[in-house]
């Protein structure tokens, strides 16, 4: 019979092999996309599954086309995505943290009722509200604007929930100390409590920014003209029944993804706590 140590060693080797295969499968679609972005779609379909690096068939032509086609429309989409993600994330962090702070740091009438409402919004699939919200944005004349994309979901129930949980765990003596020093209630939040909430801001900032950067359904409904599209909407508009513009679609997809991956590689911990915060139990 094999000893414990030998058994462990074999298990470790088998598991390592298994995960090398798994990682190959998980990373392959990204690698494939990256590689394909340097090839013309004609070659891509002619030579098919050739996924070796072959410099002779590769060029930056697709990227040149991406930036020049349609008067640089792609750069417009990129700018729209960046602006929306910055405005939304900053605004949502500010307002959601205020609400979460109110629910976590104070005792007031209607507090439980408000918290239940937050949970109700959290559990409602937004797709059910997309028709009335569309009607509302038309009536409010914010259809096809940044505000139309941002405003309806500016106060994020997940972020409110997360901030509330976080504040509940903080030491309330700081608040009383602030009051004795003569701070206003707003001052206490901005100068004393908000800095203590920095880890929560980090995790939620990443979650909200990523959800927003990749969001599809609502921007697809609100944004009506090409020059207002965000990246996912713009890219999906290149998929048409009359043939797909892969020469732009592939490099466009690569450039839309690289910033998030780089950001992830430098902030793995905050990313993972942000993206899985929905499951944090109180």
């Amino acid at each position, binding site marked *: 019979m094999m000893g414990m140590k030998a058994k462990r060693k074999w298990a470790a080797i088998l598991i390592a092999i298994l995960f090398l295969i798994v990682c190959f499968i998980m990373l392959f679609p990204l690698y494939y996309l990256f590689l394909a972005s340097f090839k013309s779609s004609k070659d891509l379909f002619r030579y*098919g599954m050739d996924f070796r690096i072959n410099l002779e068939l590769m060029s930056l032509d697709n990227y040149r086309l991406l930036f020049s086609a349609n008067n640089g429309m792609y750069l417009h989409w990129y700018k729209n995505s960046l602006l929306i993600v910055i405005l939304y994330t900053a605004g949502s962090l500010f307002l959601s943290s205020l609400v979460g702070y109110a629910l976590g740091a104070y005792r007031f009438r209607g507090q439980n009722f408000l918290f239940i409402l937050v949970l109700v919004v959290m559990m409602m699939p937004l797709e059910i509200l997309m028709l009335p919200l569309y009607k509302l944005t038309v009536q409010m004349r914010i259809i096809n604007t940044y505000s139309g994309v941002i405003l309806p979901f500016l106060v994020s129930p997940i972020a409110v929930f997360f901030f509330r949980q976080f504040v509940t765990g903080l030491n309330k003596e700081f608040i009383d100390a602030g009051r004795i020093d003569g701070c206003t209630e707003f001052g206490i939040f901005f100068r004393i409590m908000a800095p203590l909430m920095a880890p929560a801001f980090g995790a939620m900032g990443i979650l909200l920014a990523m959800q927003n950067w990749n969001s599809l359904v609502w921007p697809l409904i609100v944004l009506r003209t090409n020059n207002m599209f965000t*990246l996912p909407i713009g890219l999906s508009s290149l998929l048409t029944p009359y043939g797909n513009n892969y020469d732009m679609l592939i490099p466009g997809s690569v450039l839309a993804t690289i910033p998030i991956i780089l950001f992830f590689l430098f902030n793995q911990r905050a990313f993972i706590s942000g993206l899985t915060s929905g*499951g944090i139990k109180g």
Partner: protein
Amino acid sequence: MRYGPNTATDRNSLKKLLYSRKLAPYLFASPFILTFLIFFLYPTFSTIVMSFQELTGLNNAKFIGLDNYKRLFDVHFYNALKTNTLYTLLSILLLIPIPLLFAVLLNLAFVRGKNFFRAAIFLPALTSVIVAGVSFRLMFGELDTALINSLLIKMGLPPQNWSLNYWTGMMLMVILNLWRHAGINMVYYLAGLQTIPEELYESAEIDGAGPVQKFFTITLPLLKPIMIYTVTVAIFEGYRMFGESYVFWNESMPGDIGLTIVRYIYQQAFQRNDLGFGSAIGITLLVIVLAINLAQLKFFGFFKKDSDS
């Protein structure tokens, strides 16, 4: 200045406002209250009303009773409901055990390179469904030269027209979902595994339990709350699915392949301009999601604690 007496009364009242402990929480919570009223309560009310109306344009409405709901008994809604249900079931069947296996193995002390493996498995979660879909469309292209088809040919199997058959189309959506979400569930399970005390395993070992036994008697029962959570999310996400279908069939769907409930709403409301029927589908979707989730929570004994105590 902070304490100095102030003669101007409006300034005094402003000051009182800033220092008021009673008022502050309501002011802080007001952004939620406002957006809740405008962008949640009003739309919810308005979609219920619209579901009983026939709308031509945005402002021309006529009450037609239950007619929109009667129209739900058509083949397209049935197809959409079937697709969502199958998609959800298949997603749960794959998205629970596979990430659980990854998490358990990547939690073993003697495995090397854990951080790299975890990061690599998590990476697809960062992509948008459109970007991921583009890559999958290339790999699962209908030409013989496309990656998966050329592999099939090498193995002596017939190439497939992936997006033009119901089951291969379903497979495309499920695999895309699995690829993008396996990492997130794995991280949930890893977090759950950290909370299981090591002593439990040690005492089981003394009783002579092997790794498989330990998994079924300790790991699995203690991960139950997280598994319930991931199943709930999978149901919720499965029935509201849109992107996984949109990226493969973004204009028309031959024979309702990939037609989901939310895509049916989108189609009826924005392509056919029938907001009333779209609302009725939406309300039905809400009822379905709530009912299934409640049934599931009851099945897992989530409510037992309350009734026992």
